[in-house]
């Protein structure tokens, strides 16, 4: 609907281009890493977190002397590209990073909307791409063969995984027998979470009493909520973005719905608390990491991020930091800076302990083996409840 690029974005892009132009000094001693983030467009918050975390990871690595390969030390140079939260600009950014900047590997984009097309280009050009936050299965799958892509990895779990984890949680921990589901049918992540949730929940013996949808941009949910209310579920599964959650939860509250909501990782924004006005108090959602049960690795990251940027890092920041960490570990294990060699090192990582938990890759798949955390909304905080795997 609104594909007009604002003059500000154009100016930003041209400044970035200018800066790139003068970054060619000491080409032999640096390892160039590309970063594609959503600095403008629909999700500037995601882009900002991701960029902060990536820059922090690079600065930390450089401050300990960079990475040495074959005894020769290299500094890391981060090349940041804005994709304006759009698919076409993500493709342009990947092409530019691969052919013009000649990066060793790329981190990003974060949202699946940009990550899926970007992953296609990276795979075609045989360049390693790690997306921190894209949970869509298609990102790491070859669309034509259905097999895993060779050069594309992610630091997060996938949507179907999350749907299964939450179904088990709702049935076994919340002891719910009947659920209602309400999700955005025009958005891929909520749709695949809703489908897999329903499938798993019914396999485990639960009953779906209402399976309702809405479309991106809807504000009035009264009809769906009235339907859900009359179906009388024990729990309502709401895999929706936090701004939708704010509206839906408040309308549900007014319609006299008292049942708890259970949500997805799309809930995990501090904005949720403000936008829902206390109506999601006590509700649960799945997330990639919990800042309140931090391991020593996570604690160090959270403290230093909070000191530099003045806020607790969100899941995008944590996952970007882990993506950079995975990439650095892979480069350290490599004998050369050949893109294929670095990729092979990453594919065989088994002992990476990151901010979001232990991550390993196996059997050539770009999807990591890791677990999710279940969080609960308490006051103005998200509190860790348990770790969960399906």
């Amino acid at each position, binding site marked *: 609907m609104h594909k007009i690029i*604002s003059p500000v974005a154009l100016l930003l892009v041209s400044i970035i281009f200018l800066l790139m132009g003068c970054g060619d000094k000491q080409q032999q001693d640096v390892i160039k890493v590309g970063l594609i983030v959503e600095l403008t467009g629909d999700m500037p918050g995601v882009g900002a977190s991701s960029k902060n975390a990536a820059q922090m990871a690079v600065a930390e690595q450089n401050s300990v002397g960079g990475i040495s390969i074959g005894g020769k030390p290299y500094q890391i140079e981060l090349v940041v590209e804005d994709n304006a939260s759009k698919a076409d600009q993500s493709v342009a950014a990947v092409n530019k990073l691969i052919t013009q900047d000649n990066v060793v590997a790329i981190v990003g984009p974060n949202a699946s909307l940009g990550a899926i097309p970007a992953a296609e280009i990276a795979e075609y050009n045989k360049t390693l791409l790690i997306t921190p936050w894209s949970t869509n299965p298609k990102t790491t799958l070859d669309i034509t063969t259905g097999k895993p892509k060779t050069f594309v990895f992610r630091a997060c779990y996938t949507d179907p995984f999350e749907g299964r984890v939450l179904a088990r949680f709702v049935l076994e921990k919340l002891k719910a027998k009947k659920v209602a589901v309400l999700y955005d049918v025009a958005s891929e992540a909520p749709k695949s979470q809703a489908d897999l949730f329903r499938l798993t929940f019914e396999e485990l013996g639960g009953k779906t009493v209402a399976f*309702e949808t809405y*479309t991106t941009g809807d504000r009035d949910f009264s009809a769906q909520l*009235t339907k859900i209310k009359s179906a009388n579920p024990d729990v309502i599964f709401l895999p929706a973005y936090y*701004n939708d959650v704010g*509206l839906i939860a408040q309308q549900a509250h007014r319609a006299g719905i008292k049942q708890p909501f259970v949500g997805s990782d799309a809930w995990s924004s501090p*904005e949720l608390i403000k936008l829902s*006005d206390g109506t999601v108090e006590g509700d649960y959602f799945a997330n990639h990491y919990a800042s309140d049960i931090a391991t020593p690795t996570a604690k160090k990251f959270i403290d230093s991020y909070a000191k530099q940027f003045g806020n607790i890092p969100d899941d995008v920041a944590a996952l970007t930091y882990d993506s950079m960490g995975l990439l650095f570990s892979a480069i350290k294990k490599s004998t050369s800076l050949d893109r294929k060699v670095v990729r092979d090192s990453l594919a065989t990582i088994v002992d990476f302990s990151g901010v979001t938990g232990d991550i390993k890759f196996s059997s050539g798949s770009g999807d990591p083996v890791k677990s999710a955390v279940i969080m609960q909304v308490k006051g103005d905080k998200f509190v860790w409840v348990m770790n969960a795997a399906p």
Partner: protein
Amino acid sequence: MSEGIIYWLQQALNAFQLGSIYALIALGYTMVYGILTMINFAHGDVFMIGAFFCFLLSSLLGLSFIPTLLLTMLGTALLGVMIERLAYKPLRQAPKVSAIITALGVGMFLENFTLALAPYPKQVPLLLENVTWDVYGISISSIQIVIISLSLLLMLLLDYIVQRTSIGMAMRAISWDKTIVPLMGIPVDLIISITFAIGAGLAGAAGTMYALAYPVIDPYMGVMVGWKAFICAVVGGIGNIRGAMIGAFILGTVEIMVVAFLPSTFRDFVAFTLLMLLIMIRPYGILGKPRIQKV
């Protein structure tokens, strides 16, 4: 009462609330069209600005509901007049297409201006204490009652202004014939400005009530709602004020009832198919009359 009837009445109440808000916005489209035969595509965004005014007044100045509503209406009315004077008046003799393109441009300007100042969705503070009553199993909230009664009051007021006052008579005269009316000593520019002020003021009221009912607002919220309100105006017969109200309640009812009795995915598809059929049967809308026009 049986559960089926309760469910049905609850959904009817939902439909009435949605229809009221569509109606307030649709009136602005239809009034401007009636007078200038121009589609003011910026109107949905004036509605959005109304919601943001409401947010600013209530969260920053901490005003209560009535002052917020009145100041918001005043603010959007001034904005409406300003848009007309700066953007549309210089083009009054230009081809209709230029005016429509300009209206689209004004809409995009308002969206992106707001986006530059407020890139994240905002939560509007609760302006009225929300009480939910249980009447024979139907939940009725105080906010629903306020929205429905206030909208009806504003619509009656507008109908009175247009049908019973001299300003309203001048408006109807201009929409009848623009060339003769100035010869009779009617200040056309002033009447056009008043029309824009009233239309935009109603959009401001709609924005406030929308923010009351759906308290998360963002710069693009006016786009879809604006289109839907425009469709309501067309279905009712664009240019006809009572038609716009009828069109709005039809769309509100169809949208809610489709979700109530069919899978919710069918909503827009069924709603708009029905509206297209209606337009095929009555091309000038329910209360519209044929007139020769070029766009």
